[in-house]
């Protein structure tokens, strides 16, 4: 299946799928959604930070610890064999979910951040020198800025940034000039966690290919929300975090092109990642184990396997459409609020989140008052300070959606914001 660039035309949207029944059924699978906060039913709108977990994932973790907890790849006893089989099965499920040609190309990391660092240290350290350039964008999460800045200090390459327009999209007119024959790597975010922009990933990859640059896609906010097919997109590297897609914390994924992964040196040294260790030296293990030193996050990987199966069952097209419906509604309702400024493009160009500022009221105060109403939103710079600098603000508040959110929850958000404005009214 090809990557479906978000279909935003409602004609394709099968309304009958987003029925209240369907939604209620889905919500019932997330125990935490029953919670009350400050006496109100929880409205969880901080899904870009981390998502809630369905019963299927919670039970998978529980079963692992109750029934077959053991180290993997090390024992010949029954428990270890069961744990190893489940761990590798999870890798296969993740590979299927992103349409990876082989599970060997799915490296388990702690999170997206570690996956980017793995590429920086294992691939970057071997390929980047003073003559070279790495291109990232002004729209990146800190996790796709800082590793390159650290590496730049050491290797002396030039780090360049694709600027952002006032609308919160990448300034693609600058691309030709910024991508040069010196560019070794173009690393960019697929969907922004602040402005929400869905970047034209095919076009960006094609442009990088023209100058022979490698491509890293930060898919932290896309893989959880829309169908992503790594064979159709064909990036060199693509990263995401399990906890943002119904999975546990402590598990993330690096997908990589096979030849590149095979040629790369390990990131960390230790057990499991070697084939042979003598006092004279070591030989690396095969993929993916070369990059998985030490005892991995076994339960978390198995939990992520359960999460991607859950998501596939719900349907990634459905999730995308549902979030789009919520986002469009939220965008319209928020835009009506006086003094409220939405960061980023209109609903047709964005994923399922809306970051905003309210004139004269600090985002932390907005979030604190919403919290009293049982509504969880994020406030701060969302680990993306350059975007906020670009808009000349220190912070923003952000509502981000997932498959279990409802239109009524958007109404609760709007009511909450009215309360914020009342509280601060001069």
């Amino acid at each position, binding site marked *: 299946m090809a990557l479906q660039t978000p279909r935003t035309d409602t004609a394709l949207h099968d309304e009958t799928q987003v029925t209240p029944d369907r939604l209620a059924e889905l919500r019932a699978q997330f125990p935490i959604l029953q919670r009350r906060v400050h006496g109100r039913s929880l409205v969880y709108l901080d899904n870009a930070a981390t998502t809630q977990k369905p019963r299927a994932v919670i039970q998978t973790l529980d079963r692992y610890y109750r029934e077959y907890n053991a180290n993997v790849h090390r024992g010949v006893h029954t428990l270890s064999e069961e744990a190893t089989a489940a761990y590798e099965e999870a890798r296969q499920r993740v590979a299927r979910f992103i349409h990876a040609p082989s599970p060997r190309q799915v490296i388990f990391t702690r999170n997206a951040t570690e996956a980017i660092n793995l590429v920086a240290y294992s691939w970057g350290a071997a390929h980047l020198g003073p003559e070279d350039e790495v291109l990232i964008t002004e729209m990146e999460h800190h996790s796709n800025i800082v590793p390159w800045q650290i590496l730049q200090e050491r290797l002396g390459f030039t780090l360049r940034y694709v600027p952002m327009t006032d609308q919160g999209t990448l300034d693609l007119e600058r691309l030709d000039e910024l991508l040069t024959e010196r560019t070794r790597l173009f690393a960019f975010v697929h969907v922004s966690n602040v402005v929400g922009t869905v970047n034209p990933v095919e076009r960006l990859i094609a442009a990088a290919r023209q100058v022979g640059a490698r491509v890293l896609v930060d898919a932290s906010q896309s893989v959880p929300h829309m169908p992503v097919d790594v064979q159709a997109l064909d990036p060199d590297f693509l990263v995401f975090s399990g906890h943002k897609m119904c999975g546990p914390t402590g598990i993330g994924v690096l997908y990589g092109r096979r030849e590149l992964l095979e040629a790369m040196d390990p990131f960390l040294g230790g057990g499991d990642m070697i084939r042979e260790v003598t006092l004279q030296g070591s030989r690396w293990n095969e993929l993916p184990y070369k990059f998985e030193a030490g005892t991995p996050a076994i339960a978390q990987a198995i939990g992520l396997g359960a999460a991607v199966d859950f998501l596939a069952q719900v349907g990634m097209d459905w999730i995308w459409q549902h979030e789009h419906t919520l986002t469009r509604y939220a965008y319209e309702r928020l835009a009506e609020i006086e003094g409220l400024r939405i960061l980023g493009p209109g609903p047709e160009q964005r994923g399922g989140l809306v970051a905003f500022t309210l004139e004269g*009221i*600090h*985002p*932390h*105060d907005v979030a*604190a*008052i919403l919290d*009293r109403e049982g509504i969880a939103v994020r*406030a*701060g*710079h969302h680990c993306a300070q350059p975007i*906020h600098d670009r808009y000349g603000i*220190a*912070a923003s508040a952000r509502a981000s959606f997932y498959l279990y959110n409802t239109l009524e929850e958007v109404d609760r958000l709007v009511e909450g914001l009215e309360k914020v404005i009342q*509280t*601060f009214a*001069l």
Partner: protein
Amino acid sequence: MDDLYREAILDHYRYPRRKGHLPEPDIHYHDTNPFCGDEITIELKIQDGVVVDAAFDGRGCAISQASASMMMEEIVGKSVEELKHWGKEEILEMLGIEVGPVRIKCALLPLKVLKAGLYGLTDWPE
């Protein structure tokens, strides 16, 4: 309605006291809270070990700005010696609210700036 945003806090936020600058301050110190981008600058005039004039400038959330404004009113006339012993308790008593583990940094930022200005202590107050 909301204890975190009791009227006194909002009042200090809307109408900050002693906001601005002193002509020739003896002490001038500025710091930020990287978590929320709050900024506070404090200027003091000291005579015989006593704060005789004080002003603050800054931007940020209601908690940090109200904390600064209230603190300015409190410290004028107090000795530097006494202020050195101020900690979290004095600030919370002054604000009269319960502050959770995350927002406590907002509440304490003005005191942190004050202590750094007074005697170079740059750690968060206990």
